[in-house]
């Protein structure tokens, strides 16, 4: 009998469907991988399972019986335990306390903490995972990320209440070293032999093939396939993940590239990236690809002057690389950062104030007095270019939709005469219509000779928009590929290539 069956789960936010028809069945004592591209609905699915998000439709059966998960307590009572990618440990306190933190501490005389008992319980919980190298009295911040993760798992074991029957791990190895990952895999094997199941969410193909019994793939919020890992291979899984053809939504480049270079990088290293070498021609769109957090954003930061260049030479428009964002904007480099709300916009301020920010110098007269008319004219002009939909230019940005907010960030970028446009995940959280406007705009800018560097975790987008893709792996450039003869499957396998 299956441990857990989720069938035809659907969840929409407004008009976008995060999950359309997602299903999975988990057997007792199996390690089951859940895979899919970004936006495939994995995280929403886990939130449904955890009782954080309530599904619109679908059925949940636990050990054959219909179950409802309305809140995190329900999930806990069923015996589900969640280990997230970001470690929610309390860094200042000991390992034992982090393990005990959910429940009551053992006490002496009803008031004082019984530290001896607390440490004993922690040691016992760790021992159940086969770990005897972590001292429960250590401050947890002294441990490596991997050991912290193991402590966190031990913590879920020592919880009172229903025994754990399902561990859901969301990208657990994202911040672990190879050795730490190996220890985690041992613990997973330990959990499995104790009869518990593991739902293992990961982008890392090799791990999945190594430790999982079965794998389920989602795409665009839908169930695609469940296979035993022994009966499939990486190529097939990648095909399941990417099997769609949406190439035609990307406007084609209709002009020839000029010979002039916008940007030349030779063996550039910063604190976080190594070996960056590329030439970017006028009008060219260069993609930066890779698995999540492989250094894509860090490349942008180096180009924007946010990160000091330690080695190599970087020239943009024939000049030395910018020292800081201010000199970057002055040199005609514009940046659309990844986190729109945190890094992009002043949400309580108007569209106009957000748009003119980097261009104030050109909009002012004697003594720096802002020329309100030029300010209004510029904002109106660039708002039209990006096809911004808003009631008035004075509207504060928090009132706009995600797509229109992103257009404000783009409007800011096109206010200048551009040599180089840096786009970090430019269509994240943007609706389909706005996406197409953004693609069209990027093409228009490149047609005018602007070089574009683009990161995206959406493979069809990378392939559809870019002339070439520079592939990063663990902060290192591995190769640059032409997109002409590449499909998502081929590209993804390049990301994995050793």
């Amino acid at each position, binding site marked *: 009998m299956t441990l857990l069956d989720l069938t035809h789960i659907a969840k929409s936010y407004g008009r976008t469907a995060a999950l359309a028809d997602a299903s999975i069945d988990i057997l007792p004592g199996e390690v089951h991988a859940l895979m899919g591209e970004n936006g495939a609905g994995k995280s929403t699915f886990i939130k449904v399972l955890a009782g954080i998000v309530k599904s619109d439709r679908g059925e949940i059966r636990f050990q054959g019986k219909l179950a409802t998960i309305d809140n995190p307590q329900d999930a806990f009572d069923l015996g589900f335990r969640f280990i997230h990618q970001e470690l929610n440990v309390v860094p200042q306190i000991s390992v034992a306390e982090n393990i005990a933190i959910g429940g009551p501490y053992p006490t002496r005389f009803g008031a004082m903490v019984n530290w001896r008992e607390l440490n004993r319980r922690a040691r016992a919980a760790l021992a159940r995972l086969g770990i005897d190298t972590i001292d429960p009295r250590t401050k947890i911040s002294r441990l490596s990320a991997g050991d912290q993760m193991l402590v966190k798992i031990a913590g879920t074991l020592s919880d009172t209440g229903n025994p754990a029957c399902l561990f859901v791990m969301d990208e657990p190895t994202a911040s672990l070293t190879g050795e730490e990952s190996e220890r985690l895999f041992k613990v997973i094997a330990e959990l499995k032999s104790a009869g518990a199941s593991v739902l293992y969410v990961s982008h890392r193909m090799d791990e999945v093939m190594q430790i999982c019994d079965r794998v389920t793939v989602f795409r665009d919020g839908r169930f695609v396939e469940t296979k035993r890992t022994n009966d499939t291979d990486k190529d097939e899984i990648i095909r399941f993940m990417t099997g769609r053809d949406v190439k035609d939504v990307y406007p084609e480049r209709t002009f020839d590239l000029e010979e002039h270079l916008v940007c030349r990088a030779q063996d550039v290293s910063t604190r976080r990236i190594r070996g960056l070498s590329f030439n970017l021609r006028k009008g060219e769109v260069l993609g930066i690809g890779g698995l999540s957090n492989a250094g894509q954003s860090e490349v942008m930061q180096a180009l*924007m002057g*946010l990160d000091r260049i330690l080695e190599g030479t970087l020239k943009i428009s024939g000049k030395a690389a910018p020292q*800081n*964002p*201010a000199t*970057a*904007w*002055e040199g005609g480099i514009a*940046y659309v*950062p990844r986190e729109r709300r*945190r*890094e*992009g*916009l*002043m*949400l*309580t*301020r108007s569209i106009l*104030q957000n748009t*003119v*920010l*980097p261009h*104030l*110098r050109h*909009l*002012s007269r004697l*003594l*720096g*007095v*802002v020329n309100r008319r030029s300010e209004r004219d510029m904002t109106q002009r660039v708002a039209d270019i990006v096809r911004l939909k808003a009631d008035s230019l004075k509207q*504060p940005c928090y009132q706009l939709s995600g797509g229109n907010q992103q257009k404000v960030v783009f409007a*800011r970028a096109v206010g200048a005469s551009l040599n180089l446009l840096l786009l970090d995940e430019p269509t994240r959280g943007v609706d389909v219509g706005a996406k197409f406007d953004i693609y069209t705009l990027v093409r228009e800018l490149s047609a005018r000779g602007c070089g574009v560097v683009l990161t995206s975790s959406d493979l069809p987008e990378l392939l559809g928009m870019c002339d070439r893709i520079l592939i990063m792996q663990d902060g290192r450039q591995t190769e640059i590929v032409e997109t002409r003869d590449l499909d998502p499957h081929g590209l993804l396998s390049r990301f994995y290539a050793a």
Partner: protein
Amino acid sequence: MGLILRRYGTLLGFLAIIVFFWSQLPETFLTARNLINISQQISMLAVVAFTMTIVMVMNDFDLSVGSTASLAGVVAAFLFSLGYPVWAGISVALLVGLLGGLFNGILVSFFGILPFVATLGTLTMFSGTAFLISGGKTIFGRDIPGTFSGFARSGVPLDGIGLAGVTMPFLSIMAVIVLFLVWFALEQTTFGRRLYAIGGNMEAAKLAGIRVRTLRMSAFALTGLGAATAGLMYASRVASANPTQGSGLMLDAIAAVFLGMTMSEEGEPRVLATLVGVLILGILDNGLTQLSVDSYIREILVGAIVVSAVAFSSISKQKR
């Protein structure tokens, strides 16, 4: 209705206070003499509050303005006592304020210390320096040149506009000049736009090419300069300088900016709104004194009004 109350609640309260005192003190309150008197009483606080607005626009604030004001007064008086001319004493005192503010700015923007901690530290440092220079005593009498103390006692006669015998004090005129300068810088120039951007989202401002560090530093320097100006005005008015005379300014200045912030839609400081905040505090003080309300009760009332205005405005924002 709700919107009007939220937007103009503080302004209505301000008018209510005026009407209240007018009804209680029909003979004396709304007279040209009293109003001009108020304008002189609040001029020091006004200068500090206006320049405090500059840093508060970036969500920062400066606790050291009071001791900067004291220090500036003491420095000028000390130089006078050594026989230096008035212009030299004033220039050095203003320079001290500017450098003190610059020091705050460096601590905040280059060392990344929270403004609360940084300016709390410099508050003590500046205050200690003022004590050290003055030897803990008040510098007064023949040490203070007549031209210096005379400034605060004179003004522009208003006979021309039908107010015979009334003069507009130079101190009030100073406050108006500072108001104009701060308003011009914050509302009309790229400098002000950039400061407001930093207050809106510091990270986004930096990525949009705003030189956040330099601007924060210069904003703190201007606040220090304003505090020193107020300190000199104060020393001129009382014709003496002691190391604690500015200490009351800091809390009142922050209170005035907060009162002003309740008047804007998004809760950002505006210098004209700060003016209303200063007027509320000044008029309360003047009116309650005339009504012979005990000064302790006066403090309780002023504190309660500030707290309730800010509470009212943040509740109505949450409801949005």
